């Protein structure tokens, strides 16, 4: 089993699990349907493609910076008559950072890694107007881990530090504990349930199944402070070369 980790950071994100029509809500953390949609888009799957392989992956997310919820009031107007069309409220998470992970069979996970590294459809954080502010893949191949999902999420350094490295406030500390939301194994009792396991993204009949979620905590480890780290030459791995070796637990 291999785990793929994605950093989801951007000024605005929006992860709706029951967002329809005029109330476009967002959950407090990325949904399974949102993240799998991002992966499916990276692979270039059409909206009506089969998703069973993706839906079968074990999914979890760590909340590195929870952010705050903002409401965006959206109007549209009929150009010819000037009449207002139905108003809608769109909710966003502002200022949030998440670490999302999917665990599955090695070849498939590596294929997804390669897809995210050169995506067919451009990625966005839940809504098209929310592009990521940082690359989704962690630096130095840390996005591919041979650890199981929960351990991989636990062992990855905290990603919630603010601003560019050279202008980062010197005293910023990660919170002592980070919340994690993980797919609940079938034999356990879930803490919460959400209808966000995608069965089909086909816009004429989107379908989602219920998903049991377990809440867990992780101790945050700040990234090791190395002021020259970002000046090192970049890894030479490109999308046309085979996927890099797995990062192992060497923190």
């Amino acid at each position: 089993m291999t785990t793929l980790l994605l950093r989801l950071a951007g000024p605005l994100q929006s992860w709706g699990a029951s967002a329809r029509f005029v109330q476009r809500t967002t959950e407090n953390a990325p949904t399974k349907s949102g993240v799998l949609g991002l992966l499916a888009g990276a692979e270039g799957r059409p909206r009506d493609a089969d998703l069973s392989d993706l839906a079968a992956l074990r999914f979890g997310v760590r909340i590195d910076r929870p952010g705050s919820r903002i409401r965006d009031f959206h109007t549209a107007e009929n150009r010819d008559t000037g009449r207002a069309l139905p108003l809608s409220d769109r909710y966003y998470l502002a200022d949030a950072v998440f670490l999302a992970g999917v665990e599955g069979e090695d070849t498939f996970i590596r294929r997804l890694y390669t897809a995210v590294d050169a995506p067919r459809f451009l990625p966005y954080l839940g809504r098209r107007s929310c592009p990521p502010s940082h690359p989704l893949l962690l630096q130095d191949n840390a996005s591919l881990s041979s650890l199981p999902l929960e351990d991989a999420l636990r062992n990855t350094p905290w990603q919630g530090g603010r601003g560019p490295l050279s202008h980062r406030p010197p005293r910023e500390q990660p919170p002592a504990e980070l919340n994690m939301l993980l797919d609940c194994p079938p034999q356990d009792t879930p803490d919460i349930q959400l209808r966000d396991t995608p069965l089909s993204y086909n816009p004429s009949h989107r379908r989602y199944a219920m998903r049991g979620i377990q809440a867990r905590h992780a101790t945050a480890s700040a990234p090791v402070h190395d002021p020259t780290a970002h000046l090192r030459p970049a890894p030479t791995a490109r999308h046309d070369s085979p996927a890099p070796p797995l990062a192992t637990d060497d923190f």
Partner: protein
Amino acid sequence: MRRSIIDIHILQNVPPSNINRDDTGTPKSAYYGGERRARVSSQAWKRATREQFKQLLPPEELGVRTKRVVEVLAEHIVKRDATVADNAVKLAEEVLTAATGSTLETPKRKTKEGDQGSDTLPESKYLMFLSRRQLDALADIAIGSSGGGDPATLKAELKDKKNKAQARAAVDSRHSVDIALFGRMVADAAGLNVEAAAQVAHALSVHRSEVESDYYTAVDDQSGDSESGAGMIGTVDFNSATLYRYAAVDVNELHRNLGSGLAPEQPPSTPATKALTSFLEAFITSLPTGKINTFAHHTLPSVVIVKLRDRWPLNFVGAFETPIPKTSAGGFLRESCDRLAAHITEMEQAYGLDSDPTWVFRVGEETKGLADLGSTLTLETLLQQVGSAVSERLESGA
């Protein structure tokens, strides 16, 4: 084919204004880096960009986004063949139903007399986005298959599978520039959806920004000397900002949406290249017009950076996650440019993107911090160079 993705980064000063407001009339905002920022929604700027297209592109390259599709198509039909004018509305309705599968309804509007107005025509239930070329193609079908303008004949003809498919193909090809860039969602016919090739981010101020309120009074010109009070009083909320604006365009997707050149002598990359440079120019020079007569906030960007990527686009808003502080010299632009230059270099080196082609347009001495990123060009040269770089990429693999 080598992948081509364009990202656009803009710094723009906007004086006191209220270009995009929420339901209480307050300028929109968002928290970023723990501080409140001015925000202009992506929808607002896309709308401004679409409006700007009208100055840059001929009408046939653009789409019409309206619920009143029946009326618009009827006009196209009459323009092509005035003899069918009497039945134009009926013909338009038939061909639209067949082509899009959408339901068209006559809206119930109350007039003073209590019944609906006599001039009400059927409308679609949502904004339908059709290119002018698609409307022309539909008009041709309506005229050609109706045996001289008879709606019943047209209806019967469109029952035939082949004819129906032809009508559907008319709205599924020859998309306009704005449809290709911003996409199309047809609620009741998902097969007609067009995936947007452009992503536009919400613009955010690079600094902390609080909303201010302007208390105003208006004098009643006709009030006599004895009445010294105001005719009315009110408040307008506003803010001012140095905005970071960002958009990305998937050039390959744009090329797929638009197809190859229409004329045989035209290189296949021409439609996509033209659409891209029009988008760049329109996005750079447009400004949402909210309360424009109150604030006259007409400004243009001080900095435009365009990058050509071959894997994924990269947003540099992270440069401003720590807000730009107030300095004794005042202004945010100089520090923003220095910060942006450092952030771009850091990120690109770290992720191995630093060889990607870059074009820089900048105005003023305050922006010199960005001088090392690439040679500084005029806007016109920038558009030309980006255009030829992109068409070269598209041609090399097309």
